[in-house]
């Protein structure tokens, strides 16, 4: 087989620039025509080969990615809840402490009110100057 013809036909199949005279000469040979047809079948086979990830793979990956995303979302929610709880606890503590201080600074509400009777109270008031 003429190697030049085979190479030229391979280029033709690959849609590369070729010398038409050389291709014409190559196609005159029956052996070379068979080679050319073989090239075309191989190209067709390659073009039809649509290999990619299977549906099961897609499903599995989808579930994995969704789980990871949900886990990340859950973690953010938990962190926000913890932060909110800490802030609430701090505010509650401050409020309770303020209330306790306020309460300690205030006299208790009397359950009963008594008064000194006149007989129980003596005044020794004087007039004095300054």
């Amino acid at each position: 087989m003429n190697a030049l013809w085979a190479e030229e036909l391979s280029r033709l199949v690959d849609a590369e620039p070729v010398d038409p005279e050389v291709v014409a000469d190559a196609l005159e040979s029956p052996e070379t025509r068979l080679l050319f047809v073989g090239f075309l079948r191989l190209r067709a086979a390659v073009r039809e080969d649509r290999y990619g990830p299977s549906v099961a793979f897609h499903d599995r990956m989808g579930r994995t990615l969704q789980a990871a995303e949900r886990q990340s979302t859950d973690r953010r929610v938990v962190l926000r809840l913890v932060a909110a709880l800490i802030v609430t606890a701090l505010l509650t503590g401050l409020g309770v402490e303020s209330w306790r201080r306020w309460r300690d600074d205030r006299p208790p509400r009397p359950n009963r009110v008594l008064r000194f009777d006149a007989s129980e109270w003596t005044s020794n008031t004087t007039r004095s100057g300054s």
Partner: protein
Amino acid sequence: MSINRWIAVLSFLALLATATASPSVQPDPAQPAVTQMVLRVLVTPDTGPTREVASSNVALAIGQSGSTMFATSADLCGRGIGGAGATDHIGSPRHVWTVRFTLNAAEIDRIAVDVDVERQDDGLGGARRTLRQLILTEGAPHILDFVESSGRTCGQASAVLEVSAVAIESPALSRRLLNYDLWLTQRDGTGREWTRREARTAEQGERVDFRFQPLMWSTTMLMPSLGIDLTIDERVSGSIRGRLRADGQLELSLATSRRLGHGNGWTGSEGGTKVFTARAGEAVSVELPRMGGRSLALSAAGTPALLDYQELFKSHTTAVVLVVSPLPDGTNR
């Protein structure tokens, strides 16, 4: 040893023997004694301070009577105190007192007792008898009688007989501690309130003092029309005695006094004692009477003016708010 020294030694031994002599009381096991009546004798020498020389105690239940005696020689040198026979060694002429107590009521700081005093002075005719119906504050003395020495053989000038009453604490409660939370509150007509606080802890029946931080008042704030810019100092102090009863109620005696002043001038003092009962932890407000008194002050122009405290504080209400809480048994002070 001279005869005079023998007499002095015998008198001293007799005094020792009689100083703790039991007075005459009819025991009543059904009713425990709640009050101890104390007869004290104080002697003032020609020189030196007055001092107590003899005392006798009579423990009484409510309604119970008991008596004690005191005798002294005319020169006040020989003395005997206690029950019958305790005064026999005092030779004539002498003064003899027989004091009979009858306990009518015993509340905190209000002990009602009849005191029947019979005095016999040798050479001065028959006995003199007086009956007094007393209401005594715990521990406060009441003078019963006074006698002057008729000679100066041992340097004694006079003697005073006084009586006082002391509560006998229940053994189950005698060691209890009471916590006193005291508030001074003063509110004006608009409802604005000023407060001071003191806390005390004392044993059952023990009187404990308190003194609030002063309240300071500006005359400009109290009465702008007065045209005087002064700071009035209000000071409230007092003492409290509490007693936990077996039924859980508390008997309380609150003594309070108040002074008002500015600069170096004060209105004098006013005060009183309130006796009441309360539950443990109950907040009781005891309102003080309206303020009174006047004092002279100088206006900004140098004109003298009269500060009328009743007018200045006419819308104010002053009170002591008290909460008493018995501490648990075994609490350390």
